[in-house]
């Protein structure tokens, strides 16, 4: 079925990679967010920020087709979310993978054809070439044949980037991919994601509780707090006035050495407590 072109779209180049219109998500009487209009252009880097339970991860679930909207519509590269859409790449939080029989190359390969039925034996040569290319592009060649469980968190996340990028996605959805990484690896992994959107014009939606590691790359911020939200450039959103309005309490935003520090009622912010919702909680 052809997807109708939206009236405000002006040709393929300006078609948003992610588009939400009047989107609402409610669980029972609790509304996480409502009336959300959001466009992420190809090549744009959007950071999704907010305290625990503000619906950051739920927003990603909506875009992955795992959670229906209560109202409104969502489109990814012109299609409704869900199914095995090769246009969408996903990078999860790092978590231990101790005892699985799996090498780095296998993990990356699953990103290419793990959603496909059938044996896939005819394309093994091509597959090997593409997996090797994706691994080289994240600089993981030296450890890609090791068991995944033996790799460090940073090495695993590099492979996760390769796994998400090997399918050549137009949209990259990242759920706290820097969590529990040291500073050097935070930088390495976010550099890889930034390079991808520059080279291939891939839109990036980056859910995080901490903006500083990615502040250099961010074009736009979506800040969610208690059903309210603000969308804008980092300076427009990450300031004392806007955040005070959002949190409905006195918030001081301090900029030091190219970093942003949010000071205020800690109980309302909980910025230091990353959430641990993961997608596989639904299935395991």
């Amino acid at each position, binding site marked *: 079925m052809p997807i109708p072109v939206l009236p405000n779209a002006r040709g393929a180049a300006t078609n948003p990679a992610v588009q939400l219109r009047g989107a609402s998500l409610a669980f029972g009487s609790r509304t996480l967010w409502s009336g959300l209009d959001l466009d992420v252009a190809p090549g744009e880097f959007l950071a999704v920020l907010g305290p625990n339970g503000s619906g950051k991860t739920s927003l990603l679930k909506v875009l992955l087709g795992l959670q229906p909207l209560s109202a409104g519509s969502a489109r990814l590269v012109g299609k409704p979310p869900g199914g095995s859409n090769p246009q969408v790449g996903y990078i999860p939080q790092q978590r231990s993978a101790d005892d699985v029989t799996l090498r780095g190359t296998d993990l990356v390969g699953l990103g290419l054809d793990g959603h496909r039925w059938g*044996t896939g034996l005819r394309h093994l040569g091509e597959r090997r070439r593409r997996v090797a290319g994706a691994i080289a592009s994240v600089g993981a060649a030296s450890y890609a044949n090791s068991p995944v469980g033996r790799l460090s968190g940073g090495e695993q996340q590099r492979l996760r980037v390769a796994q998400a990028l090997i399918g050549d996605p137009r949209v990259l959805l990242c759920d706290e991919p820097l969590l529990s990484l040291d500073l050097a690896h935070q930088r390495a992994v976010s550099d890889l994601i930034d390079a991808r959107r520059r080279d291939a014009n891939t839109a990036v939606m980056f859910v995080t509780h901490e903006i500083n590691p990615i502040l250099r790359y961010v074009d736009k911020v979506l800040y969610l707090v208690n059903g309210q939200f603000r969308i804008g450039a980092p300076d427009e959103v990450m300031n004392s006035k806007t955040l005070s309005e959002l949190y409905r309490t006195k918030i001081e935003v301090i900029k030091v050495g190219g970093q942003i520090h949010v000071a205020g009622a800690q109980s309302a912010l909980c910025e230091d407590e990353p959430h641990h919702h993961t997608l596989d909680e639904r299935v395991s």
Partner: protein
Amino acid sequence: MFDFELTWRSLGLDFVQTALLAAGVLAVVAGVLGPLIVMRRMSFAVHGTSELAFTGAAAALLLGVGVEYGALGGAVVAAVLIAFLGSRESDRDSVIGVILAFGLGLGVLLLTFYSGRSANKFGILIGQIVAVDRTNLNVLMIASALVLIVLALIYRPLLFASVDPAVAVARGVPVRSLALVFAVLVGVATAFGVQIVGSLLVVSLMVTPAAAAARVTASPWKATVLAVIFAEVSALGGIVLSLAPGKPVSAFVTTISFAIYLGCRIVAKVRDRRRRVPAVTTTATPVPV
């Protein structure tokens, strides 16, 4: 003392050859399913499934129908029950325990009503491969072929869902449906395993070879090939060794597969130590002169 002469003569017997063929076919299926069972942490589920295969077999014995059909019915029911009730990882362990205990109790009750040969009763617990006839063998081969074909078609999404469920869900892989389909495949294989090593010891053919392989390789493909080889050596070797002493096949099958498992652990340990040696020497403090 091992009697080569007697073993050699026994190998010429028709029913022994049928048994070897049946064990060989089952070992392929067990070896292929095994690594996925280990990755999905389903060892206990396999045991629970095999106990319900026992219940089904006991019911079949009582009703006078083929034991293999009873075992198949029981195993598939158990696999589906475990997949449904135990879909949350936190519940799974207790759900299996509950189902297993009930199934075993029911099976024992059913057996007390059975007035036939007691060897038949014992057979479904510890295996009775020499009772496999040509008809059984045909059923086994067809069922095994079906299991392998289905597995080949779903292998990549199933592997994805098994080792990386969060990303698999995000990529649109139907993780829950796959869990159910895989449980049924395991149920079918388990039901046939019950005839060879018996319901108490199915784990030794379905899990032990794959657990051994997982010790020595991290490649899913290599693990599968190794698990098939280990399962073949255990199953065929167990039958051959059991011929002269005339003792139950299962004792030999479980012993061989356990020995292979121990061997693989030792190999992994030695290899680990060797891998660590260079790192130790480079960071070692200088030896005083």
